C-alpha cells in the first residue's frame, strides 16, 4: 500500500480512538445534571473520569496534529472551512477542562453550579458538532478548486449533518453511562445501568437511520458496492451494538463498554472506508475534492511520521492502558472522603 493510503487509515484510526476515549468523558459531562442529582453523585461521576480524561483529550491533539503533518492541505481547508464550528468545539473543551479541574478548588456552591453548567455545555457542544462535522464531510461540503469554502456554519445544519450529531451524542452518552456503571456503586450505578439500557435503544435507532440515510445523502456505499468484502465493517458495527445490549443485560459492564468502543471504532471506519480516497469531498464538483493523494505531505515526511507513529503510538497505548488498569476499580467512599480533587 502507498504511504498516503496508510496514513489515510492511521488518520481515521486516531479520530476513532479520540471518539472512544474522550467520548465517554464527554458523555459523562452531558449526563452530569441528569444522573447527578446530589452533590455526592456529581463528585463521584467526575471522579470516575478524573484520572483519565486529560490523557484522553490528547488524542484530539494528535488527530489534529497528524492531519497537519500528513495532510497539510486537508488541515488547511478543513479547519478554515469549519471555522466557527471548530471554534465552538474548542471553546467547549476549554470551558469543560477548566470547570472539571477547578470545580473543587473554590469551595462555594455558586462556583460548583457554574462549573456543572460549564461541564455540561462544554461536553455537549463538542459531541454534537464533531458528529455534525464528520457527517458533513461524508456528505461533501461546498469547496471550490482552490479549497475555498462557500458556505457558513449554517451549511452544516442539514438533516444528515444533524443526524450525525445525534448519532455521536448517543454513542458518547451510552459510552459514558456504561463507564459510570463500571466505576460507581450503589444507587448511582443502578441509575447509570438503567440509563444505559434506555440510551441503547436510542443509539440503535440513530445508527439504523444513519446507515440508511447514508445511502441517500452520501456516496459512502460506492466503495462497499465495488468491494463487498469491506461490508464486514458494517457487520461488525451492527454486531457490536447488539453485543452492548447483550452484555448490559448480563450486567457485564466492562464487556459492554468494550463492545461500545468497538462499535464506535467500526462506525468511524464505516465512514472512513466509504470516503476513501476522498478526505474532504467537494459538493460543488467531485474533481475538486481533497483526497489522500492530492492533500498529503511529501514521501519523506510521511515516512518519518510513520516511524514516529510506529514507535510512539504503541508506547502511548501501553502507558494509557496501564493508567486505565490503575484506576479500573469502582470509586470508593473512602477515596471520595480522603481526596479533595472533586
Amino acid at each position, binding site marked *: 500500500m502507498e504511504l498516503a493510503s496508510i496514513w489515510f487509515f492511521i488518520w481515521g484510526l486516531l479520530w476513532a480512538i479520540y471518539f472512544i476515549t474522550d467520548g465517554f468523558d464527554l458523555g459523562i459531562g452531558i449526563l452530569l445534571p441528569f444522573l447527578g442529582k446530589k452533590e455526592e453523585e456529581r463528585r463521584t461521576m467526575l471522579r470516575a473520569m478524573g484520572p483519565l480524561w486529560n490523557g484522553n483529550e490528547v488524542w484530539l491533539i494528535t488527530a489534529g*496534529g497528524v492531519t497537519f*503533518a500528513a495532510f497539510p492541505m486537508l488541515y488547511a*481547508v478543513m479547519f478554515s472551512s469549519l471555522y466557527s464550528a471548530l471554534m465552538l468545539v474548542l471553546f467547549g473543551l476549554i470551558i469543560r477542562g477548566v470547570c472539571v479541574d477547578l470545580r473543587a478548588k473554590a469551595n462555594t456552591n455558586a462556583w460548583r453550579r457554574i462549573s456543572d453548567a460549564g461541564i455540561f455545555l462544554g461536553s455537549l457542544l463538542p459531541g454534537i458538532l464533531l458528529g455534525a462535522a464528520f457527517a458533513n464531510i461524508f456528505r461533501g461540503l461546498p469547496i471550490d478548486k482552490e479549497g475555498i469554502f462557500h458556505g457558513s456554519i449554517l451549511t452544516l445544519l442539514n438533516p444528515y449533518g444533524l443526524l450525525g450529531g445525534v448519532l455521536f451524542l448517543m454513542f458518547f452518552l451510552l459510552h459514558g453511562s456504561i463507564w459510570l456503571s463500571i466505576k460507581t456503586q450503589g444507587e448511582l450505578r443502578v441509575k447509570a445501568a438503567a440509563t444505559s439500557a434506555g440510551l441503547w435503544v436510542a443509539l440503535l435507532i440513530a445508527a439504523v437511520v444513519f446507515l440508511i440515510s447514508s445511502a441517500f445523502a452520501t456516496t459512502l456505499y460506492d466503495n462497499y458496492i465495488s468491494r463487498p468484502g469491506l461490508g464486514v465493517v458494517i457487520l461488525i458495527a451492527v454486531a457490536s451494538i447488539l453485543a452492548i445490549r447483550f452484555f448490559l443485560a448480563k450486567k457485564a459492564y466492562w464487556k459492554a463498554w468494550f463492545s461500545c468502543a468497538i462499535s464506535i471504532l467500526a462506525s468511524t471506519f464505516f465512514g472512513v472506508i466509504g470516503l476513501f480516497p476522498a478526505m474532504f469531498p467537494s459538493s460543488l464538483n467531485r474533481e475538486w475534492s481533497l483526497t489522500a493523494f492530492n492533500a498529503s505531505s*511529501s514521501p*519523506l515526511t510521511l515516512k518519518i511520521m510513520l516511524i*514516529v507513529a510506529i514507535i510512539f503510538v504503541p508506547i502511548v497505548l501501553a502507558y494509557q492502558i496501564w*493508567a486505565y488498569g490503575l484506576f479500573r476499580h469502582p470509586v470508593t467512599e473512602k477515596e471520595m472522603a480522603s481526596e479533595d480533587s472533586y
Partner: protein
Amino acid sequence: MKVDALILSRLQFAAATFFHFLFVPLTLGLSILVAVMETKYARTGDNLYLRMTKFWGKIFLINFAIGIVTGITLEFQFGTNWSRYSAFVGDIFGSLLAIEATAAFFLESTLIGVWIFGWNKLSRKAHAAVMWLIAGASTLSAVWILIANSWMQHPVGYVLRNGRAELSDFAAVVFQPWAILEFVHTVSAAYILSAFFVMGISAYHLLKRQHIEFFTRSFRIALVFGLVFTLVEVVEGHLHGADLAEKQPTKLAAMEAHWETSTYAPKYLFAIPDEEQERNLIQIMPIPGMLSLLARHSLSAEVKGLKDFPRDERPPVFISFAAFNTMVALGFYFLLMTVVGWFKRNKLLESRGYLRLMLYSIPLPYLANELGWTLAEVGRQPWIVYGLMKTSDAHSPIAASQVGISLVAFILVYGLIGIIGYYLMARHAAKGPEAA
C-alpha cells in the same frame, strides 16, 4: 489600518499565545521544583517535604489546567486562521507539532491524572518518579514546539517544491543551532519565572513570620534553581545575539534601533526610534563599539543598519527595541536578585527589604517572558517564515466577521479563565500550607 481577517487573525493569535504563555513557564519550572521536593520526601520520609509537595503541587495543578486547555486552541489556530501558511509549511511544521503531541504531550497529560489520584496506588518513589516524568515530558514538549518556532525564524532542511516548503533534511531541522539556543533561552526563562514565583510567595509568608521552616526551605530550593538558570540565561543571551546577527539581521538592527550600517557600532542604553524619519529621536548613553562587539565579536566589525533593508522588509522598530531592552534589563535584575539572595540565604528572616522586593518581583519574569516572545515574533515581521513567506500571504480566506466574533469570544473566555485561575492561585498561596 484596514480591519480585515489578517489583522484580526494576528490579534487573535497574539492574544491566544500571550495568554497561553502566562501559564506554560510555571508548568515547566514548578513541575521540576515539586519533583525535587517530592524526591526529598521519598528519600527522607520528612513530612515537611510532603506538605511542600502538596502545597506547591496544588498551585501547579491550577496553573497546569489552564495551560493545557489554552494550548489546544493554538494547535488548531494554524488551520483555522492561517490556512495558507499551513498548506505551505505543513510538511515540516505540521510534523513537528504532531511529534510533540505523540512523544511528549501524551505522557504529561496521562501522568497528571496518575499523579493526582495515585497517592495510595503507587509507592512513594514511584509517585515522585511520575512527577519527574511530567516535568520531563513538559520540557520535551517545549523542545518540539521551539524547534517548530525556530524553523519559522530560520528555515533550514527544506526544498521549495509543489508550491510549498517540503522537508529535505529532518536532522537539519531538529538540530539546528537556532533551535538549541531558542530552547535553552526559553526554558531557562521559564525556570527563572518559576523560581521567582516560589521565592516571592515564600517571601510573603516569611515577612509575616509564619510557616518559617516550610518557606525557608522552599525559598532555598527555588533560589538555587533560579541562580543557576539566570547565569545560564546571561551566557546564552550573548550567544543568541551573535547567532541572530548572522541569521536575522533585520531583527538585530530593529531591536538595537540601529539605522546606519557602520563599523564600531555603539550600543545605546536608551533611544526612541522614529520609523518615519528612519532615525532615533533621542539616543543617549552610547557604549562605543559595544554593538559590534556583541553581535560580531569585534569592536571594528560592521553591523548592518535598517536603512540597508527595504522599508517593507523591516520589523516594527519601536516595539522590537523596547521589548528587547526591557527584557535584558530585567534579566540582569534577576541575576542581581538571585546573587544577593545567595548571600542572604541564611538570614532571610532579617532581610525584610529583600523579601519585600522578591514578593513584588513575582510579575517581572512573566513580563520578561512575554517581551521575549514579542521580540521573537514582532521582530520577525513582515515574515511569518523568515525570508520565505510573508505574514500577509499566510492567513485563511475567511470572512473578517467570523474572526471578529471568535476574537471577542477569546478575549471574554480567556479573560474570565485568567481571573478565576489567578484568583484561585493567589488565594491558595496566601492561605499557606495545611497544618502538619
